């Protein structure tokens, strides 16, 4: 509760939080199919209909309602984003934590593997993964997760190393606390703050990547909708039906903006360094 209050009293937290809340609501509506029209229904008589009272954001080439597809697409992007970030953060946390704790060879192996992954340009790595597994929702989840995993690993390992040398960990060792207890209660618990920030930022990033992959035709497959796919479909129709470009583009921008703003606010709130600056 106090966290929520803190977010909403932070200027960018207020804006970001609001966007994210709206985004999540829209995503949920889209996911559960509560949309003005059936997003798959092709009203072929009303093909490429401009925005109107019936079709708030117009219709596409097949006469499908853009607003409904947008909602469904937001739901889809959200699903992919959340799943990918969940995977990446769990895997990254486990790897980063164990690398920091055990050090030596294990640290070397983990970090070298992460170096290898990082040396691949993100989009190429995702592309290769998708080429191997075939495009689709869950493949893009896996691809985004693998691409983002090294970042989580690094984000966790750095602070974990510094927490490892903090005095309360030394204290725990002097009591003979078990490794598991120290890892979970001392390290992990104190990583919650940086992880929260990173998760928010990773969500923004994965929405961005999901859009890019779908735009390339590698993400969500038709007839399901996703924002990137809608943008890709709009490419040759932009002159005749600009609403096909503009609404998804703005939606992508605003939703990523929302998560970025929220992430910034969380960093301000949770990071003692910036907090102490005013003290």
């Amino acid at each position, binding site marked *: 509760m106090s966290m929520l209050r803190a977010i909403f009293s932070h200027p960018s937290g207020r804006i970001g939080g609001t966007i994210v809340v709206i985004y999540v609501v829209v995503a949920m509506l889209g996911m559960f199919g509560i949309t003005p029209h059936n997003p798959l229904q092709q009203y072929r008589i009303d093909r490429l209909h401009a925005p109107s009272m019936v079709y708030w954001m117009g219709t596409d080439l097949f006469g499908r309602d853009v607003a409904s597809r947008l909602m469904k697409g937001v739901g889809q992007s959200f699903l992919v984003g959340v799943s990918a970030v969940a995977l990446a953060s769990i895997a990254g946390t486990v790897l980063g934590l164990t690398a920091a704790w055990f050090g030596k060879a294990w640290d070397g192996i983990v970090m070298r593997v992460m170096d290898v992954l990082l040396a691949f340009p993100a989009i190429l790595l995702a592309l290769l993964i998708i080429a191997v597994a075939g495009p689709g929702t869950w493949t893009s989840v896996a691809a985004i997760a693998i691409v983002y995993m090294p970042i989580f690993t690094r984000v966790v390992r750095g602070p974990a190393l510094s927490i490892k040398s903090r005095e309360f960990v030394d204290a725990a060792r*002097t009591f003979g606390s078990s490794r598991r207890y120290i890892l979970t209660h001392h390290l992990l*618990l104190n990583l919650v703050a940086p992880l929260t920030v990173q998760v928010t930022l990773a969500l923004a990033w994965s929405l961005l990547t999901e859009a890019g992959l779908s735009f390339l035709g590698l993400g969500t497959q038709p007839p399901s909708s996703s924002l990137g796919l809608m943008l890709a479909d709009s490419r040759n129709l932009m002159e005749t039906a600009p609403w096909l470009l503009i609404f998804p583009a703005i939606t992508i921008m605003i939703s990523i903006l929302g998560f970025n703003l929220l992430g910034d606010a969380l960093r301000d709130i949770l990071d003692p360094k910036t907090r102490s600056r005013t003290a």
Partner: protein
Amino acid sequence: MTSLLSVSNLRVGFGRDPARNEIVKGVSFDLAAGETLAIVGESGSGKSVTALSINRLVDFGGGRIIGGSIKLTRADESILDITLAKEPMLEKIRGSEIGMIFQEPMTSLNPVLSIGTQIEESFRLHRGLTGRQAIAAAKDALDRVRIPDAARRLKYAPNQLSGGMLQRVMIATALACNPRLLIADEPTTALDVTVQAQIMALLGELKRETGMAMIFITHDIGLVAGIADKVMVMQAGQAVEQGALGEVLDRPQHPYTQHLLSAVPHFESGRAARTDFTRKEKETPALDVEGLVVRFKVKGGFFSRAQGSVHAVENVSFKLMPGETLAIVGESGSGKSTTARAILGLVRPTRGSFATHMGSIADATDPSVQMVFQNPYASLNPRLRVDSILAEPVIAGGGRVTAETREKMKALLKRVGLPEDSLDRYPHQFSGGQRQRLCIARALMLNPSVVVLDEAVSALDVSVQAKVLELLVDLQKEFGLAYLFVSHDMAVVERIAHRIAVLYAGQIVEIGDAASILSNPQHSYTKRLISAVPSIDRRNQRFEIDTRQVPSLVRPPGYEPPEAQWREFGPDHRARAEA
């Protein structure tokens, strides 16, 4: 004497609404040319903010002067109210008329600029010197603060010099343009006690040479005695007492001043040492350390070959009896903390053995030895509630948290003087002193016989220190605890130690009865150390300037130090023979 600086009813606030958040609440004082004013207070008293207001640096930290005046008499006899001055005017004043030095020499110099550049800058700005002239002036400035080999050191980056050296560089920079006022904001707090003495001596000499006035800010009233003409005591944003040095120290009027002078530990050369324990050599020691050696390999070069070792702890042996306090004293790098950490198994000893009454300690941790760390803010996991914190040693020992355990927690909390509802709170809801009490309670959860206290009161405000020390003494008596008290602070050590071991460069150079060592030190290092401790009794005492550095502890692989020769100076007092 004409007044150089006249501050009246100064009020400074912070934040969006400075009037609501006042840190300095109406402070007034006068300073004559060549005079030294010491401002004494604990953290949060507003002493630093007051100092920063004088050259208006407080503006950059988010502060705002909301009332009063600061009148500076300039070199041309004109009077300037600094509270009203505009930034370009202030830039002219700073450095040329008011110099300033700060607490942390390590961070107060720009890491990416050579120290020469940083000193020259003052000459360029205020004297208009350029090129070779500026370099020459910078060299002179370094000479003036007694830095040997000044010409070469001008090219050094700050991280190549020790803290004491850096503080000298800071002083050289601040005094470059012969300001008529020097503000020194806790300039020695971050330094070792012998280095502190050097800096104090240097400041004293420079003051005499240049005739500048000085405002000296400190939390340590003991330090004031050596340098100040006048003293102002601050508490919670107000000046509670001010007057001439002797007046304030000898006849304090305000209760807070009296408290600072009486309750706070001051070094009394062994007269205040404890006498409540008699050592019986026959008894089984609570902790027996024999031949402890800790070395860290130094790796370097392209293939990370071992190039030698840091001999951090070299052949340290002592016996700690039940109910006794052994203080390990030394300066940074002396190996005192490493010794403590090795005993707790946090550092792997290269050689040596420990034994408690439970038998020798191998690798496994022994619940009969517990530790309290220096920094109460870092040694409690901020994300755990107090009950979890106290339960941890129990869980670690394989125990279960039962109703009985909770009762014990409550009892211990009460015993260390914390409120009953503490169990449900988080560490950040406690003050520093309270946290250290929590750490003590945690250490006592397993009924240890030995508690290692690593600088356990160093991070606390002076008046809190005294209370925690009292608590420690009481607990020792109540539970028959043996303390291994690691500290650099001789005043604190005097209050708690029965015996003292002086560590220098990883070796014990002198060990024995506390009163004997403090009153009659034998080893040259111990002598130097003790003479450097500031004391209210040593008013305006002069220190010799000495630029010796601690010897390097890095030795080539396979190096073994020669066997120590000991000389006895009494029933329980011996010192290492010197070459």
